[in-house]
């Protein structure tokens, strides 16, 4: 049974279905939840689903982490470093936007006492 999961294709399918389900969980939260914290949390979960998809599909089972250690001869047989660099950037940017959004929400709550996304409608006419 363990061998079945070790096949590269199966790993890829597991990664695709798993990360897309995580994305779906975030999307579901975004569509149904009302509290601002939950909304931001859903966005964060969607993002992490995407990151897992990317890193998981780049993963080669018998390749190494892209860092040269003492008993290696050169940069051969390694995982692709570019997605890792991109995801590193994307994680930091996502966190910055999240923190900014939370600070908006805190200030808005202080002024009006509302935290429900359905109540934030004073501008609509």
């Amino acid at each position, binding site marked *: 049974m363990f061998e079945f999961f070790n096949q590269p294709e199966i790993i890829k399918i597991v990664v695709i279905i798993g990360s897309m389900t995580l994305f779906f969980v975030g999307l579901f939260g975004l569509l149904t939840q009302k509290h601002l914290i939950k909304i931001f949390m859903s966005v964060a979960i969607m993002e992490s689903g995407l990151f897992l998809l990317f890193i998981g599909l780049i993963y080669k089972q018998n390749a190494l982490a892209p860092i040269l250690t003492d008993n290696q001869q050169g940069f051969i047989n390694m995982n692709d470093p570019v997605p890792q*660099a991109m995801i590193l950037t994307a994680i930091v940017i996502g966190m910055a936007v999240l923190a900014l959004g939370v600070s908006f929400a805190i200030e808005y709550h202080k002024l009006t006492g509302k935290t429900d996304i359905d109540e934030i409608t004073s501008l609509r006419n």
Partner: protein
Amino acid sequence: MNLKRDISTSTFSGFALSASLILTFLNVLLNNIPTNITRVGDQFLKLNGSEGVANAVTTVVVYFRGFDTLGEIAVLFIASLGIGLMLDSNTRCNLKADSNFMLKTASQLLFPIIILFGIYVMVYGHLSPGGGFQGGVIIASGVLLLLISHKEFEVPHSVITLLETFAGISYVLIGLIGLVVLDKFLGNFLPHNISDMGMLLSGGIIPIIYIIVGIKVGSEMSMITQNLIKRSDDV
């Protein structure tokens, strides 16, 4: 509790909408599982040796895709500025409960260790996993520990401003020096021999830039945590 209201139509329609979207996504993705094509990353790995940096991710982050990192720092800078603007108030008030003696002593003991670890992660970013972002955030978490345990503690604002300004300016200036010397922005104008690979002093400007990034990230994150924790109208 009204079950009928809780599982409302909006929940159901949200579920149906996202499920159908995901089925489409899965359909497309599972039918087109990317095969092993040669990617830019493999070419980068070949080039990587010439910069003399053991951690290939660091080379990509700092050197090949250096403009992304500059942009990322700008994002953090603006976000920290915005959070400071939103949560700023002249009369800062502190957490209500005073922490006990044990917590205070323990955090005083731990704080230097965390800072040291952060600096280690930052300085060895070109040799081992880690680097400026991670080290900077670890330092900020040390500051967070002090902020929680010592209610009178406050991040020295002027020092932080000085640090982040210094880091930001020197990042752009190093890039411009590279432009002047080597005719490419963020060009590696310091000596970077392949034989030095694995040493602390290797890789030319790459570790220096990562340390600068670390200083910048550390100071921004410290300000963000302080602004989030200390507010005038604390509940």
